[in-house]
């Protein structure tokens, strides 16, 4: 039975929360059970943000994760904070253009993608989060690209729909990195 | 070479948790400089509000008390009445002071309570993510006025200094801003005078400080300074409303 527990973490402003939301939305469109829970509160002011996403064929108990099957990180403090929550055999996907450190855990698979750099090359660093999501999709199959695109259409206000092809491009760059 | 500018002693040597460019930090330093200059760190008790600066008790070297939302003037009254020889100040945002805390500030003022209030007006609720404050400008977009503040629905911006100036118990009232060096220096002068008025036992003193909230205004710190200047200054007239010439 498919059951993915994903933590996405980084600085505020990196699209951490919205990446999680897109993921959950796509999962829901695939008729899976999903939950999304942001970190909230004044620490946002401090600059960090994270969210917990569960996508499962089973019903979801707590939306709070005490462990994760996948961790996506976009800054160093988040890597340090969350790497130990990844289950053995799990995945860490990190933005290597922002994080100079590697997780030392040997029981997990780590993917390092210079996502911010790649996005910047695309002309917009805000796609970095999508690039990392691409890797997640490629490695876990938690959702399909089609659902992701459908989700985007639902979540994005009409006026931003012209950006969807770029977003898909970013996703695919991540998948293929 | 002599040090001509450094962190005042009354400000603790710890990083502040505020957003980049948030002028709360400037206010903290100005207060601390005044405490240093008056030599009252050991005899001052500060009262922290609920707002982005809820834990500014971590930043001041004097004794500090955290008050419930809006009630800092009442808490300060309790402290000041118990410690008639000490100096007490409250630090309050516009939501804290001008919304939920309206009764407490009006009555501390009319009682002539010997406290000093530092009132940071950033025209928004910073802490809770950008809702309308009583001081929000007309047409300003906030999370609770998504179509802009409209006078007929949400009322008018409240002018705290002007309102409190009608109360006999107030000894010193001044509105200042932080948008440039000259105004920052004026702000400090006003803060100093406000403390001096308290030390001289003259009654209630308050300094309203026009400030920025880059994060919730959706602007970068430089744009925010400009926005303050262009939008807040015309609505909130700077200057002294009471006690300019008070001997202290």
């Amino acid at each position, binding site marked *: 039975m498919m059951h993915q527990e994903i933590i996405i973490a980084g600085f505020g402003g990196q699209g951490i929360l919205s990446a999680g939301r897109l993921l*959950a939305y796509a999962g829901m469109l695939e008729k899976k059970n999903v939950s999304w829970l942001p970190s*909230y509160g004044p620490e946002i002011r401090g600059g960090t943000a994270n969210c917990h996403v569960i996508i499962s064929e089973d019903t979801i108990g707590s939306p*709070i994760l005490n462990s994760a099957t996948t961790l996506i990180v976009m800054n160093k403090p988040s890597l340090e904070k969350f790497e130990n929550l990844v289950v053995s055999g799990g995945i860490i996907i990190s933005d290597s253009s922002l994080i100079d450190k590697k997780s030392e855990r040997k029981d997990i698979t780590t993917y390092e993608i210079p996502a911010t750099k790649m996005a910047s090359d695309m002309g917009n660093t805000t796609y970095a989060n999508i690039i990392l999501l691409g890797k997640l999709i490629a490695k876990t199959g938690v959702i399909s690209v089609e659902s992701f695109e459908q989700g985007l259409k639902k979540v994005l206000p009409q006026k931003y729909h012209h950006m969807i092809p770029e977003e898909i491009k970013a996703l695919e760059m991540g998948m293929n990195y | 070479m002599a040090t001509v500018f450094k962190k005042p002693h009354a400000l603790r040597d710890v990083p502040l948790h505020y957003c980049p460019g948030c002028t709360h930090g400037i206010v903290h330093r100005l207060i601390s400089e005044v405490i240093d200059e008056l030599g009252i760190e050991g005899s001052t008790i500060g009262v922290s509000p609920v707002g982005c600066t809820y834990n500014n008790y971590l930043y001041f070297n004097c004794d500090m008390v955290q008050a419930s939302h809006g009630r800092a003037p009442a808490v300060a009254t309790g402290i000041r009445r118990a410690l008639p020889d000490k100096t007490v100040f409250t630090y309050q945002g516009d939501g804290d002071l001008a919304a939920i805390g309206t009764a407490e500030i009006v009555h501390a003022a009319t009682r002539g309570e010997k406290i000093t209030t530092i009132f940071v007006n950033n025209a928004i609720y910073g802490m809770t993510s950008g809702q309308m404050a009583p001081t929000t400008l007309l047409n300003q977009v906030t999370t609770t006025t*998504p179509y802009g503040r409209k006078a007929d*629905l949400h009322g008018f911006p409240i002018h705290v200094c002007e309102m409190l100036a009608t109360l006999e118990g107030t000894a010193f009232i001044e509105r200042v801003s932080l948008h440039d060096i000259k105004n920052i220096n004026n702000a400090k002068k006003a803060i100093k005078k406000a403390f001096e008025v308290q030390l001289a036992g003259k009654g209630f003193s308050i300094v309203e400080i026009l400030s920025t909230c880059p994060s919730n205004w959706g602007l970068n710190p430089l744009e925010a300074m400009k926005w303050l200047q262009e939008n807040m200054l015309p609505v909130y007239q700077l200057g002294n409303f009471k006690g300019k010439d008070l001997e202290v």
Partner: protein
Amino acid sequence: MGEKLLMKGNEVIAEAAIRAGCRHYFGYPITPQTEVAHYMAKRMPKIGGVFLQAESEVAAINMVYGAACTGVRVMTSSSSPGISLKQEGISYIAGAELPAVIVNIMRAGPGLGGILPAQGDYFQAVKGGGHGDFKMLVLAPCSVQELYELTVEAFNLADKYRIGTMILGDGTLGQMMEAVEFKDEENIVHYEKNWATNGTNMERDHNIITSIDTNPEILESWNLRLQDKYKQITENEVRVEEYNCDGADLIVAAYGSVARIVKNVIKMAQKEGIKVGLIRPITLWPFPVNSFEKYAEVTKAFLTVEMSAGQMVEDVRLAVNGKAPVSFYGRTGGIIPTQQEILDKIKSILNR
């Protein structure tokens, strides 16, 4: 049923209220429930409704009182410290027998506490944080879908009984997104409100809404009327989910988001051959006493799990009335108990 949407709990509360015919919202910002207000601020002007940010929680609850007097459906929302400030107003709403919906998305206390989720306001909600003998109907949803359904229901119940009805959730529930499926049409029950003060139009005697009478006989008769109503509600409106209880070695009592966690614990326990049940009170008041009575004779032990230092556990003990041991496990300060902790506690109770 419409399509599934992914929405935040807080937003769903607001949307559900609007669907239930609520066009009047008065509130004051506080984390972690602010999105209720943000949503209302966006939607109400579009549908001819009223969103008003009050100057304080005290003002907000009194605006609710005023609007309720006119017979409209009205709501406020806040979180723990803000709800404390509303206690006088809540007692007035009870005394004047006004229908109103009050949402408390609990955070950690006491005092300013923290903004992370907690369930430390159970006593306040259920026993009476305000003065005098009164009750609120208290609904405790455990999912975003249920937040929707119970919010709609809250308005119906409030009108039916002329009672303050509270939605008691916690920060997790308010902040999380989950799928929600709205009905095409809501079951809005309309009750005659000939008591409302909406102008006599010179066609009837004036209506009065008050909660004071200096004649103790009259005031007692009002109190007896309230108690009578509470009895009716206790008889008719208890809601509870019993899950896996038959033949359980131990039954956990938990509400709201903790109950979700317990459901996972039940699965974990099953794998270890331990049969655990769950009684999830959906109405905290009236409390599902019968469910506990029913199982008290046959179950070895009860465990109450809360994000508190132990509050609902008292109602569990009252219901079980000494017939079986009742243990407690709780976390505070914004910490959410983990599945493992709860399982460990269960095992230690059962000596396994």
